[in-house]
């Protein structure tokens, strides 16, 4: 029996309430959602008809059908209860998370706190428990999930208020939070996997929330399937770990990771399979295509799932299994390289998107790439830091865009315009006049993501860039060989890619702000007068997030900065995460000295310069006044067209993978092999043969006694012959 964990008798023992609270919310809201669909009475078909109207396919083009067709569709029957339960459980969970956090800060904690609930799969030497694990890393994630989740739940009260699926929406959202908490709190890979797939499920359900539109259902399905490609990798990684280490508990994996030869093929293979999972969930090349499509879901979903939490699960997992990645340099370099390429690639697409949410989606893909660069080069703290700040400002950006879309839609709705796209920036412009709060907070987020000091994004992004540079100068990564190229070269390439991505980020974000909020309004004369700021329940969370985006950087101020300007304590997050990822970071850094202070200052300067340059470039070169509304826009040509069509990646996948698999399954396997070969040739063929033999036999049965006699006699002769032979 181990000695009691310092957290054993504290509030941390209620940790299982964290996921349980949203689960309860899900059950209640789910029950309410189903109860609401129960028909008022069998003799009242009109009530049913009215219900249908509100989700009719006629207005399922986009977010817009959050708000009914008719003048004012009745609110959800249980709207009040749902509004209390849905966000209420999140408030409670956040409160509990804060309480546990407070306990943890006070406790001296070196080993994770494991809370075993029950034995899940006890099979021989595989003894899987349903167990939760609390350590500093999961605590950070829990705070982000419950905190931002709570804000987004509150925002949704306003955003989804007129939707007939109000209760269903909150049920799914609660279920998502439950899964996400399970993901980050799992004490073994399988519990994590439950959450991992659970968030995928919720993502699927929420993307396809307005399911009567085929495009939405398709997008949900695509998200789930692409995620499953990643899950395949995750599963194989688990199998390999179990086959070789005999355990799937993180604690035991960490203890036995020493059995692997550092840099060996086995651990590298395991890490690469795990990476496949991370790339799927976190939308990295080659599995990123689902995320832009996922914007079909309601905007709060995009903010919570497809920006702040779920898509960062891959980053979390790499940090969680840093004990493996840190001894597999090739895998780590793959993480970083794919992250850097994705960051740049997605940023180029972001440059030419017109749908405001699509811009943000590609931006998310790009920023996730950044995080992977961070965890890839062994700067796990930096990666997680960027994860946190990104959660702040990207959630803010999405909610802000949601606020804009909400306004646009209301305006269109007021004049019964159902043909124009409420998400297309060409239909916006000059929104700052109508939505000042949204405008301000969106700029805060834009500056944060672009990397302008002192906003949050600047510190986290700079941290990653600095670490890449430092690793190139001395680490196990730099001394490794990656596909015949020296690790240091690869790291420099990553650094340059990341810098280029930073430049593009500043450009496309400024472009988005310019087209949306500045210049003349292009919404149309009638709708223009109906544009208005969102209600306080929506702007409130925006403001909170704006504050976090502005000051989130204080979580982990770099030494270089605090030396120059005493802003506050240095590297809080790094110290906090030290017990979890410190060892792994050390192993990769291999004890090499920090970069010289002067170099760091130069790097800092470069980063700022690039961000400013990007904004300036966009500000001076782009002319929002020259834009025309979408219907009048000329089709783009050349390279712009390639970007606008996202490098045709979807089309390439479709032609190279989807169609061939489908055609082979249908044409070869089913129609040819199953129906043709097995059935026709073997099954029916043998039946036909039997029938033929039967026909031959029946010809003998002529009914002619003489024939029978002949056969009888010949048979008798033969039988006697056989007997004679046998007898003598």
């Amino acid at each position, binding site marked *: 029996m181990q000695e009691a964990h310092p957290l054993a008798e504290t509030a941390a023992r209620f940790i299982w309430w964290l996921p349980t609270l949203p689960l309860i919310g899900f059950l209640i809201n789910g029950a309410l959602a189903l109860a609401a669909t129960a028909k008022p009475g069998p003799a009242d078909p009109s009530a049913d008809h009215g219900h249908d109207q509100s989700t009719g396919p006629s207005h399922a083009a986009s977010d817009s059908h959050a708000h009914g067709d008719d003048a004012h569709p009745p609110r959800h029957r249980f709207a009040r209860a749902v509004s209390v339960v849905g966000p209420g459980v999140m408030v409670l969970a956040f409160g509990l998370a804060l309480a546990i956090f407070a306990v943890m800060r006070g406790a001296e904690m070196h080993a994770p706190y494991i809370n075993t609930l029950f034995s899940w799969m006890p099979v021989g030497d595989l003894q899987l428990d349903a167990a939760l694990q609390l350590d500093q890393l999961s605590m950070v994630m829990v705070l982000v999930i419950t905190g931002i989740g709570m804000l987004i739940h509150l925002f949704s009260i306003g955003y989804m208020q007129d939707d007939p699926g109000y209760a269903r929406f909150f049920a799914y959202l609660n279920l998502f939070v439950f899964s996400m908490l399970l993901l980050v709190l799992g004490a073994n890979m399988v519990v994590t996997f439950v959450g991992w797939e659970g968030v995928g499920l919720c993502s699927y359900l929420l993307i396809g929330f307005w399911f009567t539109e085929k495009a939405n259902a398709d997008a949900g399905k695509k998200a789930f399937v692409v995620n499953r490609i990643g899950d395949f990798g995750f599963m194989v990684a688990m199998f390999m770990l179990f086959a070789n280490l005999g355990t799937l508990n993180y604690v035991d994996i960490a203890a036995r990771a020493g059995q692997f030869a550092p840099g060996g093929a086995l651990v590298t293979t395991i890490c690469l399979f795990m990476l496949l999972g991370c790339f799927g969930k976190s939308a990295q090349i080659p599995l990123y295509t689902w995320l832009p499509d996922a914007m079909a879901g309601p905007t709060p979903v995009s903010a919570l799932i497809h920006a702040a939490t779920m898509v960062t699960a891959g980053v979390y997992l790499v940090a969680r299994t840093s004990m493996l990645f840190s001894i597999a340099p090739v895998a780590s370099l793959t993480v970083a390289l794919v992250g850097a390429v994705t960051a740049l690639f997605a940023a180029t697409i972001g440059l030419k998107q017109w749908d405001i949410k699509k811009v943000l989606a590609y931006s998310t893909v790009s920023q996730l790439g950044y995080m992977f660069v961070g965890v890839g080069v062994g700067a796990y703290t930096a990666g997680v830091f960027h994860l946190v700040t990104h959660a702040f400002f990207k959630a803010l950006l999405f909610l802000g865009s949601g606020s804009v879309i909400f306004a646009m839609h209301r305006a269109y709705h007021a004049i019964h315009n159902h043909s124009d796209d409420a998400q297309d920036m060409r239909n916006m412009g000059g929104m700052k006049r109508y939505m000042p709060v949204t405008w301000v907070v969106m700029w805060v987020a834009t500056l944060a993501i672009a990397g302008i000091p002192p906003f949050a994004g600047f510190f986290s992004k700079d941290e990653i860039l600095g670490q890449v540079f430092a690793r190139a100068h001395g680490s196990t990564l730099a001394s490794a060989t990656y596909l015949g190229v020296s690790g240091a070269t690869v790291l420099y390439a990553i650094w340059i890619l990341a810098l280029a991505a930073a430049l593009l980020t500043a450009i496309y974000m400024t472009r988005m702000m310019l087209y949306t909020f500045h210049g003349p309004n292009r919404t149309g004369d009638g709708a223009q007068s109906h544009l208005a700021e969102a209600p306080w329940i929506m702007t409130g969370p925006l403001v909170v997030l704006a504050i976090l985006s502005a000051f989130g950087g204080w979580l982990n101020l770099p030494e270089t900065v605090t030396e120059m300007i005493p802003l506050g304590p240095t590297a809080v997050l790094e110290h906090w995460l030290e017990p979890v990822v410190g060892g792994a970071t050390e192993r990769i850094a291999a004890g090499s000295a920090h970069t010289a202070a002067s170099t760091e200052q130069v790097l800092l300067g470069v980063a700022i310069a690039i961000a400013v340059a990007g904004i300036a470039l966009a500000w001076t070169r782009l002319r929002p006044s020259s834009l025309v509304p979408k219907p009048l826009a000329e089709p783009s040509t050349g390279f712009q067209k390639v970007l606008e069509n996202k490098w045709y990646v979807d089309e390439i996948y479709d032609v190279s993978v989807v169609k061939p698999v489908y055609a082979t399954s249908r044409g070869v396997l089913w129609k040819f092999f199953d129906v043709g070969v097995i059935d026709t040739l073997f099954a029916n063929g043998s039946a036909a043969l039997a029938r033929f033999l039967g026909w031959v036999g029946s010809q003998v049965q002529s009914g002619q006694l003489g024939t029978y006699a002949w056969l009888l006699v010949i048979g008798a*002769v033969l039988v*006697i012959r056989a007997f*004679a032979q046998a007898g003598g």
Partner: protein
Amino acid sequence: MNEFYPLVYTFHFYLFGLVALAAAIVFVTRKSPVAAALWLVVVMTSLAALYVMLDAEFVAVIQVLVYAGAIMVVFLFIVMLLNLGTLSELGEIRGKWGRIAAALVGLALVAELAALSRAAYSLRVTVPARSGPEAIAETGGVIGSIAAPMFRDYLLAFELTSVLLLVAIIGSVVLARKRSEHDAG
């Protein structure tokens, strides 16, 4: 063949045997059913004589009574009844190839039967031949020697035979009954 048979016995045995064989060949080649039936009667009678010579007097008597008498009379009766006495169609006997094939099959059969008979003959002499009045008296007389196994060892078969005969009687009556117009067909 170690047994000794008097010449007169052997002579008669061969005589009746050859008669039976010849009559059988004649029987099978007759076109007229009436002639065939009469030649068959000759075969059967010859066989009855052989039975006597083979110490089966009772069987011989039955042979004459039942076979040559009753059964063949029934055959002739049917021929008369159906008025087939003069019927002699050209296609009534199979063609050349049919006959050749039948001959071949017959040859094969007779060869096999001969082989089997030889085999059976070699198994012989487990029980000494019991001929002569003494032997017969010993086993309870001509009838008794048959009656004993028939009513002891083969009682069940005997009883079943009686049932069979009953069924045959009923069956033949039913089959040969002239149907009324209504249930014809």
